[in-house]
């Protein structure tokens, strides 16, 4: 079953300069926190560097050579992202991150379209970024929030979906859970939401880096994601929106670049996508994200997915023997139904202590509530340890995690 192409993974690893640097204790860096942010390949770092060293200039209004090149590369990056998700270029709006993308919809669509009788349907799996904006919109508009429940394995319970969808004006749902790796079966949910007449927003922050995602096939109105989790730089993210719905929305942030004409007393606005991009864009990082998308395409999203599935299967296999000693793994244990996230607790070792002990071995994991406090409280976990996988991880990384768990057991005298 395990058929990891080691040569390819080694080539991938060589593309990530940080992975060649030992920790201050001289350990190999075993990076298992890609769900928080991914590492960056040379091509991405170099694309940013090249912009600043060779053609840094403000875009869109510049007549001179480097300004023209900056504009071209910036808009080419948008086209690359559009192609990657199968959307039109005008449907790709740059934001800082997934969070800003969701807030843009909350302000520009939510406040306009939701009222006291309306229902926002979301799920118990949501990251704070796809929950708190809707709480605030609900407070401001009088709309109410409703939740698709999650079962003990962190999978959504869809039996009562038809009832839950009654009167729903907005479905705001995650594609993949960052805490448990659950892949939400959107293909079962979206057609019903469409039939119920709901507008659909998907939080794709954890999906885009790991799965091939096609906007036209998914048929969503909005899809939000962040560059930094998909090998791209920090500070750049994307809101995809269907053209018609974006056209109908008022602008969000106002200022330079998003206008058509300004008089002292009133203004008219630019075409898509610029209508939603006020002020000087994050030019360098948009170009960096374009490079990241090309890099992912060169690996092939099918390879990315199968590599993670194989690693996940290997990890579950290696972790299983620790169960009798108190290792609890949360979420769907099935690599078919989950992305590369392993959320766990080991006996009475608190997740933060686990993370500190693993750190001494160079193993980087995340501990805490993973910005899903309500899910944690529902499940009765005060914190979990989370190891998450990506393109540069290997079986050796999983082995290092296991050794770290053994060390933690020794430290805690289990």
């Amino acid at each position, binding site marked *: 079953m395990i058929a990891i192409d080691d040569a390819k993974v080694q080539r991938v690893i060589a593309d990530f300069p940080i992975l060649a640097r030992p920790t201050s204790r001289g350990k190999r860096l075993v990076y298992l926190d890609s769900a928080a942010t991914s590492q960056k390949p040379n091509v991405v770092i170099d694309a940013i560097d090249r912009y600043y060293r060779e053609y840094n200039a403000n875009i*869109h*209004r*510049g*007549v001179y050579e480097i*300004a*023209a090149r900056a*504009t*071209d590369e910036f808009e080419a990056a948008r086209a690359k992202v559009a192609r990657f998700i199968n959307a039109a270029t005008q449907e790709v709006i740059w934001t800082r991150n997934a969070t800003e993308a969701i807030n843009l919809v909350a302000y520009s669509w939510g406040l306009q379209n939701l009222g006291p009788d309306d229902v926002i349907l979301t799920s118990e799996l949501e990251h704070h970024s796809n929950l708190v904006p809707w709480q605030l919109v609900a407070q401001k508009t009088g709309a109410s929030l409703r939740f698709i429940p999650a079962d003990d394995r962190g999978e959504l319970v869809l039996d009562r979906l038809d009832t839950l969808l009654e009167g729903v004006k907005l479905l705001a749902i995650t594609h993949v859970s960052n805490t448990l790796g659950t892949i939400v079966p959107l293909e079962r949910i979206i057609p019903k939401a469409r039939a119920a007449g709901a507008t659909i927003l998907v939080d794709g922050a954890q999906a885009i880096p790991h799965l091939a995602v096609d906007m036209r096939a998914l048929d969503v109105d909005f899809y939000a994601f962040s560059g930094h989790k998909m090998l791209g730089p920090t500070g750049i993210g994307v809101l995809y929106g269907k053209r018609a719905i974006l056209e109908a929305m008022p602008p969000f942030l106002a200022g330079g670049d998003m*206008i*058509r*004409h300004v008089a002292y007393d009133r203004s008219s606005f*630019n*075409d898509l996508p610029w209508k939603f991009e006020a002020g000087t864009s994050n030019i360098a990082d948009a170009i960096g994200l374009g490079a990241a998308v090309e890099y992912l395409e060169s690996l092939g999203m099918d390879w990315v997915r199968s590599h993670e599935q194989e690693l996940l299967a290997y990890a579950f296999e290696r972790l299983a023997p620790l169960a009798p000693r108190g290792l609890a793994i949360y979420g769907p244990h099935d690599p078919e139904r989950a992305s590369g996230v392993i959320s766990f607790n080991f006996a009475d070792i608190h997740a933060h202590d686990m993370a500190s002990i693993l750190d001494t071995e160079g193993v980087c994991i995340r501990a805490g509530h993973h910005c899903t406090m309500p899910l944690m409280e529902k499940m009765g976990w005060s914190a979990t340890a989370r190891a998450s996988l990506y393109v540069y991880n290997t079986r050796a990384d999983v082995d290092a995690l296991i050794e770290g768990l053994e060390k933690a057991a020794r430290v805690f005298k289990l």
Partner: protein
Amino acid sequence: MDDFYRDFILDHYRNPRNHGHLERASASAEDVNPLCGDRIRMELDVRGGVIADVRFSGQGCAISQASASMLTESIKGMPLEEAAKLSKEIVLENVGIGISPTRMKCAMLGLRVLKSAAIGEIAGWPDEE
């Protein structure tokens, strides 16, 4: 780019042909390049499906104004249907060599406005109330 500004371009810039307004325009359109502020308005007098007369107005760089001026000369007497289908070749032929990609939008502004006037006239604008 500097070789773009030949005598006939400067002449069209400084002495634009068909500049001003029509007493009776059967079709018109106006647009602005939001990035640089160049603005052009085209007014057409269409008789029997043919552009009998045309005027343009607006402000902007030598490229946008000279291109628009030359375009008005090219389309006088042209069937409206044909004007609606014009490609950017006509502008490139008019202005000749030397236009840089950054300035292409300036060169095409007049054509864009002309086409939207023509298409609007053919298809009928949605009622504006």
